[in-house]
């Protein structure tokens, strides 16, 4: 049972209630934070992520399990590649950082690789901060899987970049190691984009660490992306400018504070604990509006649930965000079709007028009478010329 809510409860406590008693918060990782920018208008996603709800478990409990999974082949290969890149004290990795980002510096003949092990994420974060502070001036330092903390809507999120390199000039570089190939110098742009957004989160977290030091070291806004070269598993690297992604993520993180406002609109006792009965859970989820779009399918665990609801409501955006562009205030499939058929809508509204014109032109081209629109027009079998209107020739 959710705890009774008292006025003035701190946001953290409110979010814990939403998550359900004894349900631990799902730690937000950089990938999840980067995904915030995928659909920043979605209140449902904002509150669920903000409250640390395990969306995978929630989706299963709602009967619309997410379809994200990773092949063990990819995992094995990815791990093997990362190990290879970092082998030998990170010699190859540092060589790439030097070559791609800091040619003016002394080549990294040898580097310090501080031990970052500690107990718990807080301990590891402290250890990382210490290692960064104590990095020797004038030398190269490689931090292998450091831990960084970033304040997300009042709670710390712990982030683990693949590596952070301290340059001899004291500046810091985020390194992302990915297993998609760099083929003849180029890589899948959507994957590079995702890596850049993820790296931007690390940069923001590093900047918080840097801000506590005096003088504050520079966190470089060009990160190093390391990928397998062509068809081999030799490392190749490319510098990626993440200033844009950093700006966007910073703004989205700042906006996450609005989850307090969202939480305030929820009915008393709302809870997203996956062990609640499905009907109750559905009602809880439905009490926060979502802005589903097909792109969610590849970015959010709850997407299939939201798609079902969006389709059931007849929302035109279930067909894609762009569909709405020319429909003005019309938002459902039936409203649009009724307007197109001339049954509803103000003919002076240009959206309605354009729809009617489109419907007329379409049925004229299909050689059908307008009322056929209401039923299923058969696929025309005859050649174009037989279809009532002559094509231009």
């Amino acid at each position, binding site marked *: 049972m959710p705890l009774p809510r008292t006025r003035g409860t701190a946001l953290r406590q409110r979010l814990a209630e939403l998550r359900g008693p004894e349900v631990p918060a799902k730690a937000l990782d950089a990938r999840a934070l980067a995904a915030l920018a995928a659909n920043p*208008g979605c209140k449902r996603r904002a509150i669920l992520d903000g409250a640390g709800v395990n969306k995978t478990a929630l989706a299963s409990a709602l009967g619309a399990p997410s379809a994200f999974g990773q092949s063990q082949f990819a995992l094995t290969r990815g791990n093997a590649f990362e190990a290879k890149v970092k082998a030998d004290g990170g010699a190859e990795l540092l060589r790439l950082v030097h070559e791609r980002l800091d040619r003016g510096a002394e080549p990294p003949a040898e580097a310090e690789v501080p031990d970052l092990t500690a107990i718990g994420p807080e301990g590891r974060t402290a250890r990382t901060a210490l290692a960064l502070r104590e990095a020797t001036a004038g030398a190269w330092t490689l931090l292998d899987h450091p831990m960084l903390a970033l304040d997300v809507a009042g709670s710390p999120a712990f982030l683990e970049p693949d590596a952070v390199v301290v340059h001899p000039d004291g500046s810091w570089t985020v390194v992302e190691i990915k297993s998609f190939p760099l083929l003849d*110098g180029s890589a899948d742009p959507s994957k*590079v984009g995702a890596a850049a957004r993820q790296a931007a989160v690390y940069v923001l977290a590093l900047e918080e660490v840097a801000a506590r030091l005096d003088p504050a070291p520079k966190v470089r806004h060009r990160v190093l992306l390391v990928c397998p070269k062509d068809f081999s598993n030799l490392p190749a690297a490319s510098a990626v400018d993440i200033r*844009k992604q950093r700006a966007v993520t910073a703004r989205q993180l700042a906006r996450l504070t609005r989850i307090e406002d969202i939480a305030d609109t929820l009915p008393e006792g709302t809870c997203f604990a996956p062990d609640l009965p499905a009907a109750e859970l559905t009602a809880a989820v439905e009490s926060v509006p979502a802005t589903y779009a097909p792109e969610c399918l590849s970015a959010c665990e709850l997407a299939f649930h939201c798609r079902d609801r969006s389709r059931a409501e007849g929302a035109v955006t279930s067909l894609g965000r762009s569909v709405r562009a020319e429909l*003005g205030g019309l938002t459902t499939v039936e409203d649009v079709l009724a307007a197109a058929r001339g049954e509803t809508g103000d003919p002076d509204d*240009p959206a309605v007028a354009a729809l009617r014109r489109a419907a007329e032109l379409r049925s004229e081209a299909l050689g059908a009478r307008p009322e056929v629109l209401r039923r299923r027009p058969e696929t025309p079998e005859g050649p174009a010329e037989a279809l009532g209107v002559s094509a231009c020739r």
Partner: protein
Amino acid sequence: MTTQVFDPGAAAGEATEAILRDTLHGAHRGVVVDSPPGAGKSTLVVRAALELADAGRPLMVVAQTNAQVDDLVLRLAEKNPELPVGRLHSSDADPYDKALDRLPQVRKSAKAGDLTGLPVVISTAAKWGHVKVDEPWAHAIVDEAYQMRSDSLLAVAGLFERALFVGDPGQLDPFAIVGSEQWAGLSYDPSASAVTTLLAHNPELPQHRLPVSWRLPASAAPLVSDAFYPYTPFRSGTDHDDRRLAFAVPSDGSGPDKVIDAAAESGWGLLELPARHTPRTDPEAVRAVAAVVRRLLDRGGAATSERSPDPTPLTADRIAVGTAHRDQAAAVRAALADLGVADVTVDTANRLQGREYDVTVVLHPLSGRPDATAFHLETGRLCVLASRHRHACIVVCRAGVSDLLDDYPSTEPVQLGTLVKFPDGWEANHAVLARLGEHRVAWRP
């Protein structure tokens, strides 16, 4: 430290002298000049052309559209009616402005061979792309080089030995109608801008910038400079007191009149309609744009500027309406016709590039949209719309654009090896909106 008074004329003059020095006497094959809106690019091109011609260097000039070519020919003729100029044109019907026929020193032909030996020959990049010569021109001026595609420079670069490239990096980028991702990141990506390719291969070329906008008033230059040229700032050539917009007829208290007064006072005005999702040709917004234009004309506007001591009447030809889409422009034209307004330019950002008015009225590209798209967020589009005016810019927009921007999914793919273009449209839009918000008139028509 001494406080230096910024003398725009001196700063601009110095920049021009340096450009001409590099162009005429420099050691490099190319010189690149960035020119922000209204910074005297045409003046520079004409002056460089005349000096090159004076120095006896055979010159070809490459512009991007026929209108630009004709405009240059006319400007050259105005500055030096003696100079023989060749106008190379296409073999289509009406290939050039008839005004050229009145200039005896201008020879026109569709064949480059007919124009050999003339000190200056001017044509479009498209036409130059079909020209073959044995002996290249000693010099070229490439105008609007940032709007020229790399592949079109490839087609003409063999025609000249050296060149001066002039353009505005903040305006709309060239585009391709098919995907060109496979060449992204290559230094010679054919869909990139000509300047991008040129500098990738010749990073040592001298790069200049014209530091003063003579068009944009002091109220507009800082915003446009910060929002669209963060790394290459420029100043206004005039001060706040140098320009004045006044209206004989007092405000009737309506939204359009209030926003006109706000814009006359501050240089910017935002007429904000209630939030609503609308199709592109939002009738209310279109009518609001037309109403503002009608009132601008009816209220007997007069513009005072550094150009003359006496106020100039704000006539229809000194006003323009800018939109993002052609159908919006068509709808505004129809609405203006309904109000009996003629002779006011109404066009899309693409077609307003390079033009100048006293007052512009802009239908915000994101007004009433259910979602933002890359097209509507393109920095260059907003930059063009926000930088055509000498006195004031009035934006008509539905409320809610700020939220729309915040809800914009940013999952853009990233091509390795390409230069990140700055600023991005999302940030620039926020910057412009924030400024417009200070001069907001909410209106329910």
